[in-house]
């Protein structure tokens, strides 16, 4: 391959700049979080006397443990069910030849363009009439529905690319559609479903609008939805606010770092395959 030396250098340079710009806001959060809690931070510096205690204070004052429990509960409510029903639907649309499948797909995909803001007000009254308002279920049910367009689309993209010979072989062996789905298709779909699981985990964990509107008690929200509560709870003390925000994003970053290899690969494959 022929390459111009200056291009290579320019490329590296730009990449390094992009990396720095990406990291600085996070570093500046850390710098703010370590400065004395009762004052406004004085700038982006490594404090001479880092106040690690701020993280402990933020953890306690912000009820972070309870928030994480609440978030975990919501994630457990949303992710497994979404994965199961989206995998089934994705197989129906991608693996089985069904009449009208194309229209069903369009019907789902149109949902990708609906901004949450357009639905939030009806969702509120729906939750009220279902009696789920102010409970974690008020977040769980709508999120499953709202994630369906993407999840179904994603799983369909996987099943479309499974060679049809596989299922034909199974049919010859006399397997029913269900048996074939469970024994042959599901094991093959594990990478696609695990990537989807990570994505749905992140989207649920980071969900903001629904929790703020549908659950009045911040302690029953997702951690992201509780960030506004932090803004009030710390009387807007910038060091504590940043410490709290860092605590909240840590689990998401950990999950991402653990799974990032398969995650990025699957995301890229899935997103560009059709």
């Amino acid at each position, binding site marked *: 391959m022929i390459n111009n030396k200056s291009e290579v250098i320019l490329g590296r340079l730009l990449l390094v700049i992009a990396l720095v710009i990406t990291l600085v806001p996070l570093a500046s959060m850390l710098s703010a979080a370590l400065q004395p809690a009762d004052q*406004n931070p004085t700038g982006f510096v490594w404090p001479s006397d880092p106040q690690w205690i701020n993280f402990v204070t933020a953890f306690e004052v912000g009820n972070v443990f309870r928030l994480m429990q609440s978030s975990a509960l919501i994630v457990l409510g949303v992710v497994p069910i979404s994965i199961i029903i989206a995998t089934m639907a994705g197989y129906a649309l991608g693996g089985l030849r069904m009449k009208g499948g194309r229209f069903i797909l369009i019907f789902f995909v149109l949902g990708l363009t609906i901004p949450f803001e357009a639905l939030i007000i009806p969702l509120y009254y729906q939750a009220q009439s279902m009696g789920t308002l102010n409970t974690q279920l008020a977040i769980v049910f709508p999120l499953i529905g709202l994630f369906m367009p993407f999840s179904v689309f994603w799983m369909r993209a996987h099943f479309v690319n499974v060679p049809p010979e596989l299922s034909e072989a199974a049919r010859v062996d006399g397997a029913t559609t269900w048996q074939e789905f469970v024994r042959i298709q599901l094991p093959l779909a594990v990478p696609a479903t695990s990537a989807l699981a990570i994505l749905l985990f992140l989207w649920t964990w980071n969900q903001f609008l629904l929790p703020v509107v549908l659950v009045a008690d911040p302690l029953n929200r997702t951690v992201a939805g509780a960030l506004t509560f932090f803004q009030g709870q710390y009387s807007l003390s910038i060091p504590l606010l940043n410490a709290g925000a860092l605590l909240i994003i840590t689990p998401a970053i950990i999950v991402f770092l653990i799974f990032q290899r398969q995650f990025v690969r699957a995301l890229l494959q899935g997103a560009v395959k059709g």
Partner: protein
Amino acid sequence: MTLFRTRRGGTGLAVVALSAIAAAALTGCAPGSSGTASTTSQAPVSTELTTDDVVLTIADETGFPVTDKLTEEFTKQHPNVTFNITRDTFQNLTANAPKLLASDTPPDLIRLPTLGDTVKDGLVANLDPYFDAYGWDKWPASQLAPLRMTEDGTRGSGSLYQLGLGYSVTGIYMNTKLASQLGITAPPQTLDELEKDLAIAKAGGVQPIMSGDKDGVVNFVVQAAMNQYADKDEFLSWMFNEKGATFDTEGNVKGAELIRKWADAGYFPSDINAIDYFTFNSNFTGGQGLFAWNGNWEAANYQKALGSDVTYFLAPPATAGGKHVAMGAANSFSVAAKSKHLNEIAYFLNWVHTDEKARQIIVDVTGASPGGDPSLALPSVESGSLIGQALEMSSQLGAEDGQVDFMANTTAGIYAGSIIPESQLLVTSQITGQEFVERVQKFYEGEVG
């Protein structure tokens, strides 16, 4: 990947789908209840506290620990009554309050800065029976007036729907250390004197006014200026949503123009719209700013940070010897109409106003006046302390009958929807005082009319 692998007809389908949705929506019946919400049958009014174990729920805003302290003391005195308190930011709480009250499991007691439609919709309990039963007629009527509402939604008279956990007063804090450096020896007695002090500070390189407007604090300054020119009753009638009342009065415009003048003169911090409440306080207690307009609730904090270098006084009148007018309001709470513990909550509210320890907690935690029967002894405070000054201001204001509500409480949406954004424009010289007043009034008409 293509999000829309439609080839053809995708848009068409979308149109069909949307029309179908529209058709379905139009044939449905109207949303909302057709009648007024029916209140669940209540136990007969009683001033005896139950002996059963009950858990009362309270929804309060974050950053105000007074309910924690009060309920703790109440449970100590009455162990069969415990409390469950949830908190959210002021902004979220005001947005959610009506819906919380309408839900099947409303909090028994809720922080409700603006009654809004809640009375009309039958969401909050009428406290008149308890007013009679407990003899609250001994309490200052002017303190309770803003907590009343008529059936057609006008505040200021009618039945009692709220009570305060403390009654606040606002004024001006002055950094006396900076003042004496500038040669200012005493708090200004008139608006003119105040303006002179501001000019002296500016010339002396001291930030004349510390304030912020990211979240609207500067409106303490704006309204304090208006108060001195406006007809108090006319201003109040607007805040109480009386028919035909207007914000666009000569006095209000004059006050707003004064703020514009101060903005032009550079008396406000240049980045005022980036300063939030915390930064504002942290700046003032850090020694930035000669004056800060704020309420009694910060008295203890300011004292702690500035020691003896700070004093507190009511905003001065326009002319020498004029009466003082200042904002003050109940830290207002309402009881949910659907609450199953009306008697217990009313007992608690009465206790807050009458129990010696409760009154002391109100003063210690909030610096606010505990309200209630004026013949009751006032809680003890360190003499000469800011809290002591605040209590004196409170009683002076009561004697001069100069208390007005906060204009932010006029309607539920007016603060976030209009007063904050327009005041941001006003204090940075983007609009005139006249425009400020007109725009807020226009928003008001949209919401009330």
